[in-house]
């Protein structure tokens, strides 16, 4: 009988590791970006890398095999709901030899909240091959080891806590109103006569700062209230208006408000205009939140935060305007012509926007 003496396998000196690939993922706005390190000696089993059979694999030969390598990789990594696309093709050295480094991205439509991976590289041919996965999402790192024994893994990514999310949207809201020239212009048209009131067809100064302050507060608050309502409705997809319509309507609202300063139809209830038109402006803000895909987000945090942000931005505008309009109320040319000319200028700009938005 032939004794094979496989006894010699008892070599503890053979303390080396079997085949691994290294898969690193990071969440992005549109999905994931990634880097996959695959050992060249593993690829050798699947592909014919040494084209000229000289016992060496050169960079040129690797490049010739690039499509095949990327094809193999793409076939063996599934990320549910995302489409893989390969970018960079590089090399690197790890402890046990040279690896091909595939840079790739996964298009998932938006930043994923959970990621389902399915890994099958080499697992049919090699029972001990493992994919070492590292996923980075914000400040958190998740890891997994995938292979024949565990081919799939679902990562549930942590959401930031309520206040962090609130703060984030607050910043977003503030930013949005600052870059929203149309919203700002509307606000300004409302504020121009805020320290005055109508009496006998004329603008007359309001007596005290507190009265002026209250009027302004009334305007700004009703504006905020109104746009909060419609923002919520639109962000939740309860009401959906075409953006062209919304943007044109916003321009019209500015014209209306401005002209109202010249030929006042509404005076005592200035806040009514603010509210009425605020409803339209709310739809304008909604587009920002819609882009972020709020359907399953922390709705309360995001809406509240965003609205607070917008309000804060508005208050900043008020803080700038109030010290100007308050003393200005006593200035005659301001009462007689300043408001009117300013408003007409605003109306002109808004009219230009209207034409641009409605017809182009």
């Amino acid at each position, binding site marked *: *009988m032939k*004794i*094979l*003496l*496989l*006894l*010699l*396998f*008892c*070599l*503890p*000196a*053979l*303390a*080396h*590791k*079997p*085949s*691994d690939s*290294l898969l*690193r993922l990071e969440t992005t706005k549109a999905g994931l970006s990634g880097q996959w*390190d695959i050992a*060249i*000696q*593993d690829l*050798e*089993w699947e592909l014919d*890398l*040494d084209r000229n*059979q000289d*016992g*060496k*694999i*050169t*960079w*040129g030969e*690797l*490049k010739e095999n690039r499509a095949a390598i990327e094809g193999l990789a793409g076939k063996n990594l599934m990320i549910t709901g995302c489409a893989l696309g390969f970018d*960079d093709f*590089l*090399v*690197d*050295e*790890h*402890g*046990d*030899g*040279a690896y091909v*480094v595939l840079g790739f991205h996964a298009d998932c439509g938006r930043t994923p909240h959970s990621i389902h991976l399915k890994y099958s590289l080499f697992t*049919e*041919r*090699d*029972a*001990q*091959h*493992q994919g*070492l996965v*590292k996923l980075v999402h914000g400040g958190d790192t998740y890891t997994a*080891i995938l292979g*024949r024994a565990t081919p799939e893994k679902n990562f549930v990514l942590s959401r930031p806590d309520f206040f962090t999310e609130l703060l984030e949207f607050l910043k977003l809201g503030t930013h949005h109103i600052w870059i929203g020239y149309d919203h700002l212009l509307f606000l300004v048209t409302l504020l121009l006569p805020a320290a005055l009131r109508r009496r006998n067809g004329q603008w007359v100064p309001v007596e005290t700062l507190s009265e002026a302050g209250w009027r302004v507060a009334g305007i700004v608050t009703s504006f905020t209230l109104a746009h909060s309502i419609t923002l919520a409705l639109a962000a939740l997809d309860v009401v959906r208006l075409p953006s062209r319509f919304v943007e044109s309507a916003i321009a019209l609202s500015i014209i209306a408000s401005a002209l109202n300063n010249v030929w006042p139809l509404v005076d005592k209830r200035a806040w009514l205009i603010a509210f009425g038109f605020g409803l339209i402006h709310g739809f304008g803000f909604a587009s920002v939140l819609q882009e972020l895909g709020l359907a399953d987000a922390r709705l309360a945090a995001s809406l509240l935060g965003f609205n607070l942000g917008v309000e804060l931005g508005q208050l900043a505008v008020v803080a700038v305007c109030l010290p100007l309009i308050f003393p200005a109320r006593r200035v005659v040319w301001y009462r007689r012509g300043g408001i009117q000319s300013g408003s007409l200028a605003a109306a002109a700009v808004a009219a230009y926007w209207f034409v641009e938005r409605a017809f182009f």
Partner: protein
Amino acid sequence: MRTALLALPWALLWGAALPAWGTPRLPTADSEVIAPTRHQDDKQRLKTVPGGPALAREYLSLGRRRSDPRYFGLAQAALGDLWTEPEPASDVWLLRATLRQADHDFDGALKDLDGILTREPRNPQALLTRAAIRQVQGNYADALADCERLSALTHGLVVIGCRAVAEGNSGKARESLAALEKELKGDADPGVWIWAAGIAAELSLNLGKTKEAEKWLRRALEKDPEDVFTLTALADLLLEQKRAAEVTKLLQGREFVDGLLLRLALAEKKPGAPMGPYAKKMMERLTEAKNRPRYPAHLREEALFNLKVLEGFDDRAAEMARENWKVQREIIDTRLALETALKAGKKEWAREVAEWVETTKLETPDIRELARRAKK
């Protein structure tokens, strides 16, 4: 799992120190060699082998020859469903046991071997493999029983060698060595001869005969200059005698094998000096190996590395050596367990090993000295 817990602080510690993800680069010239082919000839040859046990056996022997456990994964896959078959054909069952042993799953391997031998009590390969595992575990009495059973089925160097390990490490080093030396004079299959010469070297060391040990190892190397087991044993011998430069020369270009890389790192080590290139590479390897579930497979190397190369990691070294000693108890493991325990001041652990040394009647001089210190 205890070992998994051991791994964690390591991962954190080294994870910070090492860029595990490296810095990928774009080569500049098409002619730049990125990697040598490793599998070209094998691929061609293996194309003709049908899938199943035959292919698994090919991968297995390749893995052994190349000292590359990547092949074991291929071997396991080649067995397909047979891997989980409760009672397969004996040759498959043996392959499975061998793969498990190579993976350091000694319990799993023993279970397979017990199964085979229940069905076929006179299967020589199974007896030999089981004896080998039992010897690694330090279970010399049961190993000897298997060797005796084997002696009823065959004779020659294999049996003498089998007995020599079991008896040579449990009080009968002199007699075992004599019998082995006699048998080694005759003809034998080179693989078997080299294995037996390695045992002769170990027994010589047990008796303090370092020159003899070196002679046996060098003769073994003449027959096969690539044999990793022999290279490792010779390197350890040279390191013990502070002949580090010879180690570097001996193992040059062989850092692919972790065990040899470790010896290169040990040879490179100068007290107080910063980590040399071999040590850095070893650290990288050990970190990368941590992702493997069979983490225990690296405990011996890692403990040695901690003890002899890194400085200030005595506790870690002791813990790892102790975990390692639970799984395997070859001379090197016992020595490691004692050395690290004593250095880290873990008297209880050292005493436990020392008692085992006593009961087993291990004769290796330096181990007996360590045991004596442990019992003080």
